[in-house]
């Protein structure tokens, strides 16, 4: 997320920067193109002006040095010579020089050429213009020269400079028209030079009415293939204009040629600016992409440096929450180290508190167990002593001695050096001693049978759990039966559970009675101390958990089977201690081990 946010912000900044750069750069480039176009046009304008001034000077020279100085009737040779001199000196730019009288008759021409049969000079535009405004020189638009016969079958494209002149013929002054036909190719060449680039930008020349003098697409315009906004351009003053012509946005630069009123027009379509910027645009995009890549890497490094300690800390906290006990990650920047340290200390404190609570709970359970244990001993002792008293009263000393010896065994196991957990074997021995005592007491009114798998003898068992069951079997099962009472003690293991069962063939119980037997602690027993089954069940469950304890099965008139279910825990000193401390086997073992390790 950090990286994404960083990248997004960086990219946006870059985008804005890129667009800004592009806009700035393109504006500067546009300005540059316009300025260079203006410069070029100024230079071309000057060249054109020089050319036209040259033509005017030729016209002046012909007029003042040749025509005015000579009479056409007698000095035609001098006139021809003077005109020839001027023509030869400027032949690259000139097509012809000719003088016509006021009737349109040819007075002199250079180069000497035969005139067409009837060129109708007075009706030609240049003649009409000259006569129309006699005080001025007139530049025509380009046209085909229709005056002289050319046997090479060529028709020359010229621009005519015409003026009214005063000529003398046979001593009579009269007005005539001097025509200097400039070769259009000279102007065309100048214009072609500046139109050499093929990028869409072009220059054209028009007169003050917008009539095209030179255009790169002159014929296309006359054929209607292309159109030009020359009429509007002719109305513009010198400067830079923006216009939309035939749907195309373009810049138009206008430069007026002195004296003629011709307009040199530069046209820069906006596509030229775009075309020029095309590579720049690519370059900027490429630069942006590369910068985005680089920023991505930098952002990744920065974000990883920031987020990795947080993620590691989070992972260790999650592991902790999942039950494992990893070291809380402490690393990265000072703040994150501080955070990790705080979490670590918090967890340590929580652990400490938890252990304390567990220990307190164990202590409480042990206290409860001890209290229950202490309930049994007086109960049994009372019964046994009662039997011995009865024997001594009946002078059955041997039996009393047996009883006392059995009682001694019983108490030895009962005491068991203060242990709560003993082996199954010891418990069975205790049960046998008890049954021996009871058999004497009940004058063998019942028989007892022990059938226990030897494998379970070395497993853990809660002390004094069989005895209450046997006592109940005697009291509620076989007591009162004539010589046919049978109590069977069996022991087996089944799927990791030790099952010790006491079965009698007594009167049995109803299902309802069985149901309440372990749940109704307020039930008043008919015989004994009344702490038997509930006591045993509680003790087992305190040590081994709620899933273990007593199971009772009984059928009225058939008998009762009470089974002890405890987990199969091999009897070792370690297991015994663990169980006695309240750690349940298989569940709390690890905690026990760690606690012991800590103690160590």
């Amino acid at each position, binding site marked *: *997320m950090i*990286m*994404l946010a960083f*990248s997004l912000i960086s990219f946006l900044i870059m985008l804005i920067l890129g667009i800004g750069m592009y806009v700035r750069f393109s504006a500067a480039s546009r300005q540059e193109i316009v300025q260079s176009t203006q410069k070029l046009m100024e230079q071309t304008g000057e060249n054109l002006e020089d050319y036209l001034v040259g033509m005017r000077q030729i016209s002046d020279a012909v007029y003042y040095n040749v025509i005015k100085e000579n009479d056409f009737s007698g000095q035609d040779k001098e006139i021809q010579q003077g005109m020839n001199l001027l023509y030869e000196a400027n032949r690259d730019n000139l097509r012809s020089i000719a003088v016509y009288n006021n009737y349109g008759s040819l007075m002199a021409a250079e180069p000497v050429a035969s005139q*067409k*049969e009837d060129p109708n000079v007075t009706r030609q535009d240049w003649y009409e213009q000259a006569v129309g405004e006699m005080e001025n020189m007139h530049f025509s638009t380009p*046209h*085909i020269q*229709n005056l002289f*016969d*050319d046997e090479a*079958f*060529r*028709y*020359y*494209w010229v621009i005519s400079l015409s003026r009214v002149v005063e000529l003398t013929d046979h001593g009579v002054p009269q007005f005539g028209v001097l025509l200097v036909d400039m070769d259009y190719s000279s102007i065309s060449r100048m214009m072609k030079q500046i139109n050499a680039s*093929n990028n869409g930008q072009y220059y054209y020349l028009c007169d003050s009415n917008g009539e095209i003098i030179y255009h*790169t*697409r*002159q*014929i*296309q315009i*006359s*054929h209607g*293939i*292309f159109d030009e906004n020359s009429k509007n351009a002719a109305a513009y003053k010198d400067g830079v204009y923006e216009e939309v012509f035939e749907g195309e946005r373009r810049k138009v630069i206008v430069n007026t040629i002195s004296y003629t009123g011709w307009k040199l027009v530069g046209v820069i379509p906006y596509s030229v600016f775009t075309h020029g910027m*095309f*590579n720049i645009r*690519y370059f900027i*995009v*490429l630069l942006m*992409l*590369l910068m*985005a*890549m680089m920023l*991505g*890497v930098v952002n*990744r490094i920065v*974000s990883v440096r920031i987020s990795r300690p947080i*993620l590691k800390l989070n992972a260790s906290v999650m592991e902790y929450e999942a039950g494992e006990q990893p070291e809380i990650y402490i690393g990265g920047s000072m703040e994150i180290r501080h955070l990790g340290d705080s979490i670590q200390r918090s967890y340590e404190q929580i652990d400490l508190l938890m252990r304390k609570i567990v220990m307190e709970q164990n202590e409480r359970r042990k206290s409860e167990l001890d209290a229950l244990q202490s309930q049994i001993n007086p109960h049994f002792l009372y019964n046994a002593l009662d039997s011995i008293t009865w024997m001594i009263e009946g002078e059955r000393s041997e039996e009393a001695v047996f009883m006392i010896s059995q009682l001694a065994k019983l108490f030895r196991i009962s005491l068991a050096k203060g242990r709560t957990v003993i082996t199954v074997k010891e418990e069975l021995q205790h049960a046998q001693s008890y049954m021996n005592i009871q058999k004497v007491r009940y004058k063998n009114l019942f028989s007892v049978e022990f059938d226990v798998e030897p494998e379970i003898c070395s497993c853990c068992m809660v002390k004094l759990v069989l005895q209450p069951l046997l006592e109940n079997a005697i009291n509620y099962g076989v007591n009162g039966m004539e010589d046919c009472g049978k109590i069977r003690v069996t022991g087996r293991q089944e799927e990791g559970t030790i099952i010790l069962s006491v079965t009698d063939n007594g009167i049995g119980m109803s299902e309802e009675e069985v149901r309440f037997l372990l749940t109704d602690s307020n039930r008043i027993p008919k015989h004994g101390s009344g702490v038997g089954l509930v006591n045993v069940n509680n003790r087992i469950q305190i040590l081994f958990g709620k899933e273990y304890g007593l199971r009772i099965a009984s059928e009225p008139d058939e008998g009762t089977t009470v089974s002890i279910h405890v987990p199969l825990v091999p009897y070792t000193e370690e297991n015994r201690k663990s169980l006695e401390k309240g750690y349940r086997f298989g569940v709390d073992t690890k905690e026990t081990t760690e606690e012991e390790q800590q103690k160590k």
Partner: protein
Amino acid sequence: MKDSKKMFILMEGILAALVILLVMVMFWGRNGEEREKVSVIIQNADDSQWSAFKYGLRMAAQDQDIEMFVVSTGKVLTAEEEKEVIEREMKQGADAVIVHLIPGDGTESMLKRLKKRIPVMLIESSVSTGGASAHFPVTKTDQYAMGAALADALLQDYSGKLEGKKLGILSESGESWKVSQREKGLSEALGEQDVKVLWSVGSRYMEEEEAFVEALPKVDLVIALDDHSLTLAGKVAAANNLHGALVYGIGHSTEAVYYLDTDIVRCLVVPDMFELGYQSLTELSKSLRSFFYAPQEQTVPYMILRREELFSKENQEILYTMNQ
């Protein structure tokens, strides 16, 4: 963390792909600046009759940003020679060709082969001598209409009365389809006029062609159906060897205009050769720039020139193109 790494790799991958794409586009753009090449093969390419046509081609090449090259050919070009020139141009990398076709054996099959490889545009020509060129795009003038326009001019000059006039028709023998169309237009427009066509001859670059024309029987009117014939008739008439016959014709060279200007030719029908060149190349360029575009047949206009208005503004433009 893994997701973020994946996203990072994905993002960098996309950016790298874009960079590669952009570099390729830039590289391609730089290489793509090479212009298409179009070769133009016309007979007697240096002759002034093609000036306006070549100017039209040049203007179209400039407008379309195409490299155009007019192949220099001899005065007389046979169909076989023309085939060789086309093959040579293709080998030299022409992207398209504009051909003024000279009919001959195997021309159609050669063109079919050619068309499969590069776009072809014919000008003023037909594949078969019969004029059926349905398979090949042609830029042309309406030959029939020009013939008819010539007849109209003739009728106009004689107020529709040509009874008893003797006509001689001069034409290029190698341009049988074009000439036949013009002749058809002429004769159909003359209709039921009682004119007698005394002779109708082909004059294609034969030796002593002027003498040949001079030796033809005297007629009142000579109708020249193509530029070469018209300039030939003009030349003979200028030398006063056409027995006083008035010349009418179709032409597009400055010589033809000159004979009109000097009143040797009475009326000149001029096909717009500038337009012919311009449109043929423009149409071909569309086909070069679009794979799916097939060049279409183009018909260009023609003008009727009289001496009186030869130097009108419009006609000056035609003269300008002829002079290029």
